[in-house]
Every structure is written in structure tokens, then in C-alpha cells.
């Protein structure tokens, strides 16, 4: 699982049939120092994540298979919206 920032949406007419009706978002994985990954990911969202929001993404397809069937290629799913991250300031005693 990792944190990601929502940076956009994806619209796709032609898709695997199990993905009909899914909401697809462009998400960028965040590092511990807050920098974002060079390559974006497309994630499935059932939580209603908004642009700019930080979310937690799971790369395990179990949730997707449960909702969309065993044949679904969906893998990255938004599993929660982050409202707070506790991280001591860099250099402080751990």
C-alpha cells in the first residue's frame, strides 16, 4: 500500500468488460519526503476521492476481484482517503 495524490481523471470507452462503470483516477505515488513519482498510476476509486486529495492505494487486486469478479484485471484500488499523516520532523529523535 502507498500514499498517492489524485491529479486527474481518465475516461475510457473501450475497456475490459469487468471495468464497466468504474471510476478511474490519475494518482501519483508519494515518497516519504512528499515528492511525487515520475510515472502516474491509474487507480480504481469507489471512495469518491477528489482532485488534490491524498489517498491510500492498495496494489492487491482482492478488493477488485470481490467487487468486479475473478476475471478483472483491476489491481490498484483507493482504499481510503487520508485526513492526517503523523510524521516527526526530519532530524528529530525517533
Amino acid at each position, binding site marked *: 500500500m502507498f500514499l498517492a495524490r489524485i491529479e486527474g481523471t481518465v475516461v475510457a470507452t473501450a475497456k475490459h468488460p469487468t471495468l464497466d462503470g468504474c471510476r478511474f483516477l490519475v494518482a501519483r505515488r508519494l515518497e516519504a519526503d512528499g515528492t511525487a513519482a515520475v510515472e502516474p498510476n*491509474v487507480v480504481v476509486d469507489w471512495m469518491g476521492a477528489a482532485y488534490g486529495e491524498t489517498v491510500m492505494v492498495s496494489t492487491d487486486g482482492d478488493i477488485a476481484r470481490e467487487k468486479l469478479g475473478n476475471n478483472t484485471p483491476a489491481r490498484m484500488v483507493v482504499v481510503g482517503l487520508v485526513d492526517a499523516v503523523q510524521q516527526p520532523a526530519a532530524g528529530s529523535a525517533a
Partner: protein
Amino acid sequence: MRLGMVRGHLTLTPAVASFHGRTLAIVEPVTMENLRAGNGQGGGKALIAVDELGAATGQMVAFTEGREASNPFWPTPVPVDAYLALIVDTADVRP
């Protein structure tokens, strides 16, 4: 899933039975910078993905990697590690 630009297709002869009759696309992953620019460039390391959607060269797609890439063939086990799941009509990314 990652986003990619389809750069071409390939055929295998011979190939293991799982790949008989499959369409294989060469996909170049797209970086955030190129996605924002909308310049049709990729920027990532190219890979091969199974294509059942009929994506054309130059189209943007989203592909699944890992174990989930073989789910569409469930319950048959296949050695597939990348699968085109979406042909992207529009990717709306804000600045």
C-alpha cells in the same frame, strides 16, 4: 495500472500455447510530464502487453501489471504479466 502509448504490435512464431492467437502490443509508459503536456510522448521503459481491445499504434492505454494481468484468463494459468485494460479517450490532468 500505468499509462502507456502503443508503439506497435508483434507476433510470435513459435510461442507457448498461452500466446497462440494473442495480440501483443509494444507499450511505452507515459510520465506525468508528458501526460500533462499531451505531446504523445512516453518516456518510460517499453514493455509488451497482451491486447484484447484492439488498441492502435499511437493510442494511449492503461495496462495492469503483475498477477492481476493474468486474471482475465482465469481459471487458466497463463504467463502474462501485462494486460491492456483500458483504451484512454481522455486523461484530464490539472496543472
